[in-house]
């Protein structure tokens, strides 16, 4: 049976609402995807019948909560084909996962050690490393970005040198939609014994994957972009890599024993989960990943590719429109950034909003990439399987309106 977005739409209650009395054309999925009823139900059911703190109680509810939390970990492990559940660390999102990694991997580093990243990184995979540079004096080296909006991997040979300890790159740009080919990255890292950290915030929503086959040592993503709740994220790590990492935050749940003289830490993943974790959020994430794996999204990629190409082609027909990202569907996802000559991205987003079209305008937390393209920002339409041809039509009607409003500006 052909993929039918209507069957997906009916599972997302928010898509039937009319914010401000207008139909909703939600094209801001790269920022946060919407949540299906089944995930809302799973969270409600957990909070209604299983709410308790995890690991620290022997009463029935505490055991049920722990089971639900660990069950969610198992689902994540299955989603990314982990060897063991213990490779899955729950965090509060991609940002907190990368901060954990930057702290732990950076602990033993100092002057002369090098980290390789790219000009295309989201601030979440940039600022933690800038902070590490401030603390430890490490050197950061940046892969450039091609005119097409891809990380220029031909520069790996020059940038990855003997003292490189970590290569950390986005799996998929939240601005250009370009997917990074990790094969040469992993080869370069292996040659010098560097770790590979992958920012999977934009790629994880595309469906089940295999982080270790990709060659990653660590892989981060967020719940709210994979149809789950916010306040939950994942740092997956190879067992040996996690085992060698010191903790980041200290607190309850992450220790083996504590005295006033000393502390010893628990094994991964607990070592990295200090304090009460986001329990219902983890349960929601598990439900969301189960939903993605359930087969509803079979054929969705073709559908989204077609819509993405429609957007790209229609943009190319608008004088003064500039696409920031690849113009074909090879190794790219449905994230389309564009600039319109003379129109500020906030004004574009605002006018689109009066048509019920939700897009994002601004620098998308990627200021160095904006600078690379000589822009202060772009407007960005980003797709999910529930988007339709009507959404694309509404987008372009709204863009026409923006161009009219600002003609002669």
């Amino acid at each position: 049976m052909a993929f039918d977005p209507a069957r997906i739409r009916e599972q997302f209650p928010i898509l039937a609402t009319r914010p401000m009395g207008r139909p909703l054309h939600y094209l801001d999925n790269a920022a946060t995807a919407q949540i299906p009823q089944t995930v809302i139900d799973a969270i409600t059911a957990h909070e209604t019948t299983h709410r308790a703190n995890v690991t620290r109680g022997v009463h029935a509810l505490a055991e049920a909560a722990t089971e639900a939390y660990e069950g969610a970990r198992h689902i994540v492990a299955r989603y990314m084909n982990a060897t063991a559940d213990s490779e899955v660390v729950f965090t509060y999102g991609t940002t907190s996962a990368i901060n954990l990694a930057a702290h732990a991997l950076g602990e033993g580093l100092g002057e002369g050690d090098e980290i390789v990243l790219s000009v295309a990184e989201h601030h979440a995979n940039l600022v933690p490393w800038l902070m590490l540079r401030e603390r430890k004096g490490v050197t950061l080296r940046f892969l450039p970005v091609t005119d097409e909006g891809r990380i220029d991997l031909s520069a790996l040979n020059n940038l990855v040198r003997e003292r490189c300890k970590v290569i950390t790159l986005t799996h998929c740009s939240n601005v250009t939609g370009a997917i990074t080919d990790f094969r040469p990255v992993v080869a370069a890292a292996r040659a010098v014994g560097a770790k590979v950290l992958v920012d999977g915030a934009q790629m994880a929503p595309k469906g089940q994957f295999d982080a270790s086959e990709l060659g990653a040592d660590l892989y981060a993503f967020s719940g709210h972009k994979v149809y789950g709740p916010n306040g939950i994220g994942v740092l997956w790590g190879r067992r040996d890599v996690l085992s060698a990492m010191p903790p980041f935050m200290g607190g309850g749940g992450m220790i083996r024993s504590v005295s006033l003289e000393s502390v010893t830490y628990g094994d991964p993943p607990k070592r990295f989960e200090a304090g009460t974790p986001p329990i219902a959020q983890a349960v929601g994430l598990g439900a969301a990943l189960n939903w993605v794996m359930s087969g509803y999204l079979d054929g969705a990629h073709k559908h989204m590719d077609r819509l993405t190409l429609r957007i790209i082609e229609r943009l190319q027909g608008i004088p003064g429109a500039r696409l920031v990202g690849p113009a074909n569907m090879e190794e790219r996802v449905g994230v389309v950034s564009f600039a319109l000559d003379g129109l500020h991205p906030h004004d574009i987003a605002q006018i689109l909003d009066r048509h019920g079209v939700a897009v994002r305008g601004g620098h998308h937390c990627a200021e160095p990439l904006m600078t690379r393209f000589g822009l202060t920002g772009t407007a960005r339409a980003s797709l999910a399987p529930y988007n339709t041809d009507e959404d694309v039509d509404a987008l372009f009607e709204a863009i026409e309106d923006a161009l009219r409003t600002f003609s002669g500006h």
Partner: protein
Amino acid sequence: MGGKDIYENDIMELARAGSRPRYIDAPDGTATLDNPLCGDRVTIEMRRDKEGKIADIGHDVRGCALCQASAVALADTARGKSPVEINAALSALQKMLKDDHEHHEKAWPTLAAFRSVHGHKSRYECVLLPFRALLVAISEGEGGDASRP
């Protein structure tokens, strides 16, 4: 989100004027402020007369239509005013955005154009940024606190 259409003619006219930079001779103070939310940047220059009132204002806006419009409205509003009065204008503008009060329009007629932004909370800072920049420019010129008379 908000109900009204932001881009009414008044704002669009101001924005058109604000889309080109305007520089003044021999400024007494200059300030550049960023809006970290969107990366917008406003530079305001000002010169004061013998009584300390604002004689002229220049602007260079790398930002949205609201920010451009506000820079022009600021020049219009602030000319001949003291720093205390400009502070009052900023408060009035903030109130107008927040509460949609009509009575501020009488005191600051040019600012009335921004009533249409009421309700669009994410855009308030776009409108306020040039005013904030002027106060910093004044304080820079005085080498002190912008809120001081």
